[in-house]
């Protein structure tokens, strides 16, 4: 393109300013990618939730338990295909910083309810045979360099306290990259064996699969009606609603991230808009010369917008590139506090679109000023 030389010559005229403006875009897009990834991770539970899965918790709160005896009653409700139950263990591996979620699972039914968390058959068989066996998510295994055959001590202050020993007999992988690979599962029988008598026979929550997602409302109502007025009333909700409520405990993450993101981009708009305005003002007489020798108003607008857009694209791509490098490091730094952080293509695409939009808007006003500039007046300013 024959105008490219003019555009790039103008871009490179003030190299320090160019670098600073590129830096502004890079930092803004880097922040955007980070915020989007974190927001995505918080919402991940709702996103990956099975449409045909319901979660049954104690109506009082999730920390209150439900009797194991509910299991068979729930299974009898029409529309329920299979059911498993889990307890939160809350143990510590060596140090409190080494957080990862540990769940007591119903070994017979866990795989039917969560088919997306894949365990090889031989490892599952080994798990069923070993009362102290544990299945661990691939990310957690990698994090602590665990391998099959390792014996792991986990301390807990709950359930009578003490150190519990587990044999790593299997490692599960998510069917998709966004599936949570940080969990640690062990058997209900081992759990029941070691906890105090007073709290035996109590599960944290049930997760069940339906024959059809269309049955969700009816089955939820039937379960909650079944246990109404009992000592442990239930609250049944879809897995996505459960995940969304879980995230709400942390505050309105979506609003918080949207607010920060808006401030970042508005500031970027002011910075780049001001830079472009200064750049155009400095070149008033040159732009007047362009117009005098026959370049149209549109050509002048094009020059300004092209400069702004190139800055936005280069700066934006640089920011997103750094985010691609940094997100895995952030994931490691969070030590499994959030499910896997994934900088997805939609986030990258949205970031690029935002950079282009900011680039165009910030170049538009000075561009229109340049377009409307009267040659005679501009030349007189020399």
């Amino acid at each position, binding site marked *: 393109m*024959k*105008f490219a*030389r*003019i555009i790039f*010559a*103008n871009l*490179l*005229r003030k190299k320090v300013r160019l670098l600073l403006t590129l830096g502004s875009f890079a930092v803004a897009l880097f922040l955007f990618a980070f915020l989007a990834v974190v927001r995505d991770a918080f919402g991940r539970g709702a996103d990956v939730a099975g449409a045909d899965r319901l979660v049954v918790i104690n109506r009082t709160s999730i920390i209150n338990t439900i009797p194991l005896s509910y299991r068979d009653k729930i299974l009898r409700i029409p529309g329920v295909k299979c059911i498993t139950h889990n307890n939160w263990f809350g143990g510590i591996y060596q140090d409190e910083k080494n957080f990862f979620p540990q769940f007591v699972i119903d070994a017979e039914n866990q795989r039917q309810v969560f088919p997306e968390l894949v365990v090889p058959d031989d490892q599952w068989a080994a798990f069923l045979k070993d009362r102290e066996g544990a299945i661990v998510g691939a990310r957690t295994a990698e994090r602590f360099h665990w391998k099959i055959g390792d014996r792991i001590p986990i301390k807990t202050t709950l359930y009578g306290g003490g150190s519990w020993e587990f044999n790593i007999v299997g490692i599960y992988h998510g069917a998709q990259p966004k599936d949570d690979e940080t969990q640690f599962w062990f058997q209900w029988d081992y759990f029941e064996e070691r906890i105090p008598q007073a709290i035996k026979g109590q599960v944290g929550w049930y997760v069940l699969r339906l024959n059809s997602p269309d049955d969700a409302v009816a089955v939820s109502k039937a379960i909650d009606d079944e246990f109404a007025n009992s000592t442990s009333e239930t609250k049944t909700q879809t897995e996505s609603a459960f995940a969304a409520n879980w995230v709400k405990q942390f505050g309105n993450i979506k609003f918080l991230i949207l607010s920060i993101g808006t401030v970042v981009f508005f500031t970027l708009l002011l910075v780049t808009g001001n830079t472009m305005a200064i750049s155009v003002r400095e070149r008033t*007489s*040159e732009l*007047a*010369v*362009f*117009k*005098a*020798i*026959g*370049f*149209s*108003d549109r050509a002048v607008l094009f020059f300004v917008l092209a400069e702004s857009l190139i800055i936005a694209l280069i700066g934006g791509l640089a920011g997103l590139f750094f985010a691609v490098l940094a997100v895995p490091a952030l994931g490691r730094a969070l030590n499994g506090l959030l499910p896997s952080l994934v900088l997805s293509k939609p986030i990258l695409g949205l970031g690029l679109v935002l950079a282009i939009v900011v680039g165009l808007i910030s170049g538009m006003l000075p561009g229109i000023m340049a377009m409307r500039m009267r*040659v*005679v007046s501009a*030349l007189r300013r*020399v």
Partner: protein
Amino acid sequence: MVKVDGSGGKSLIQVRDLDKTYRRAGEEIHVLQGLNLDVESGEFVAFMGPSGSGKTTLLNLLGGLDVPTRGSITVAGDEVTNMSASSLTRWRARHVGFIFQMYNLIPVLNAFQNVELPLLLTKLSKAERRAHVETALSVVGLADRMNHFPRQLSGGQEQRVTIARAIVSDPTFLLCDEPTGDLDRKSAGEIMALIEELVEHHNKTVLMVTHDPLIAARAHTTLHLDKGVLVEGKMSQAAPAGSFA
């Protein structure tokens, strides 16, 4: 032959009853009033006059950079005053070469790239553009400076690049606004010699504004503007009454 009484026939540049009025702070300022001018092809005309007499305004109007309040300007049969802004822009690219007092080169482009600018608006190929630019720079004696940036050139050389840029697209006429105003006497002399050469050997039509009588004396015709009216002229050679040639 240059005429100022509106009696010219089919001259290259025809100006008729030209008025230009500015309004400042509610007051009307009549810069040009009922101005007539006929300039034939190949003429070299100098406009002189005190500051505020309307010299630059006239040049801007002739170059299609400004529009008159009343009257008409016709160049090579095209009535400039009736054109839309976009048509006027295209017309300028085709017909007018500008030479400014302050050179007005683009500092981030080298001499070659500055001279090439008007050709970017044409359909010429890259090779054709290169040939034209090299020719123009040779005419002004800067063939060996084409990769130099404006900051690496002297004032006189910068003005030569401006002249090369003005002639590279072979416009119908050149408009020079104080082309030597920012140069020392020696450089000014060289620039004037170059402009004379363009007129004499390349048959260019040149309209020039200057304050300097010595510079004006090198034109075929000098016209004096005073308070917006062409009031007197200087004949550099024999011409019929009522005309300056």
